[in-house]
């Protein structure tokens, strides 16, 4: 048996846009993904089954679900993880998802995430940066008005997603909204969704997200705490480091 299986529950469309929302800084990706699922009424179309994941399930309406699920409609496939992916499992999990998406001929992969900034509570507006898998993709996101993250380090699932897509020649981008490092940040999630709309045309109303922001922060406490522990193990604060390029 393969270590990772992606079990399809419904027919999967070809040529969709594949999105990723994993627990990371400010839980930006997960909060944005949850909002997309709610606003677009996305249904669970597939899930990940793997012995590499912790012995943990999520119960919804009394029924068991995998912590890593794929929601979708005719043109979106959204992968979301409800718990942080342990550092040791990031490579195989991301590889499996990318290979699966490649098999479904997705037209683009976009991961939604955050970029921690100091004095976040003093920031008047939150910028969104992008990194891409190829010069063409980078130009495309820049042409949509998103600033490129030209130099620096990235740590976590979105980093591996981008690297693998670059190696495989798949069009991909990571959108990173400035956010809190250790606290859930619905405002940053709203900003990343605005940029997602520019890049992919997938638009949702963010008013409800901002309105419920404080409640989301409260509800997301425990996931954020677990995510902090995993981020600490994978040395997430390296993203603050000043890079030293050899050439």
């Amino acid at each position, binding site marked *: 048996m393969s270590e990772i299986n992606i079990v399809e529950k419904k027919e999967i469309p070809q040529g969709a846009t594949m999105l990723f929302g994993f627990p990371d800084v400010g839980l930006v990706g997960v909060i944005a993904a949850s909002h997309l699922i709610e606003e677009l009424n996305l249904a669970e179309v597939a899930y990940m089954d793997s012995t590499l994941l912790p012995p943990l399930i999520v119960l919804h309406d009394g029924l068991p679900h995998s912590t890593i699920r794929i929601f979708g409609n005719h043109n979106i496939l959204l992968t979301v993880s409800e718990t942080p992916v342990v550092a040791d499992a990031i490579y195989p999990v991301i590889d499996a998802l990318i290979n699966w998406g490649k098999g479904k001929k997705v037209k683009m992969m976009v991961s939604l995430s955050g970029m921690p900034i100091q004095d976040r*509570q003093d920031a008047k507006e939150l910028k969104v940066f992008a990194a891409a898998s190829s010069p063409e993709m980078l130009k495309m996101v820049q042409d949509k008005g998103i600033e490129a993250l030209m130099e620096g380090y990235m740590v976590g699932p979105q980093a591996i997603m981008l690297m693998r897509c670059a190696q495989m020649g798949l069009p991909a981008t990571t959108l990173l909204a400035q956010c809190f490092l*250790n606290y*859930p940040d619905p405002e940053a999630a709203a900003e990343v969704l605005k940029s997602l709309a520019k890049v992919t045309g997938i638009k949702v109303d963010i008013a409800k997200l901002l309105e419920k*922001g404080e409640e989301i922060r409260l509800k997301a*406490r425990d996931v*954020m705490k677990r995510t*902090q522990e995993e981020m600490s193990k994978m040395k997430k604060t390296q993203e603050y480091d000043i890079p030293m390029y050899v050439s």
Partner: protein
Amino acid sequence: MAIKKRRTIMDIFDDYFEDFEREFERRREMLLERPSWNQKNSTIEPLRNMIVTPTEVIVTVDLPLTEEKAVQVKPLDENTLEISAKMKRKMTFREMGMTHQEGEFQKFHFHSRVPVPVQMDEMKIRFKKGILELHLPRRRGRRKPKT
């Protein structure tokens, strides 16, 4: 040219013990895994973070659904803080997505131990966007012997 003060053997010992205490505290927190809420007292523990710099200790606390006037910061001794904050409204476990728990809570509450000597009476407090920020200047000189 800046003149760097030479470190004494006691400074090195102090730094070593401070590092040790910080690591001990981190591991103690990990070992004491428990729910982040207390049903009996109807309280919930907020997310918080502590940064130790050479000059100060910065504690931040995420306190959504609270207002500045409802936040209380109380030093319990020379290195322990008690922080509590009443929320604007009650939240039930059901609203939080936990249908198998009865009850509600309306208050954040926790104790935090500062791992290095600080001047509690010089603490500066700021509250913005639901984030409480405490700045505690580090105490210079020898640490007080424990009695």
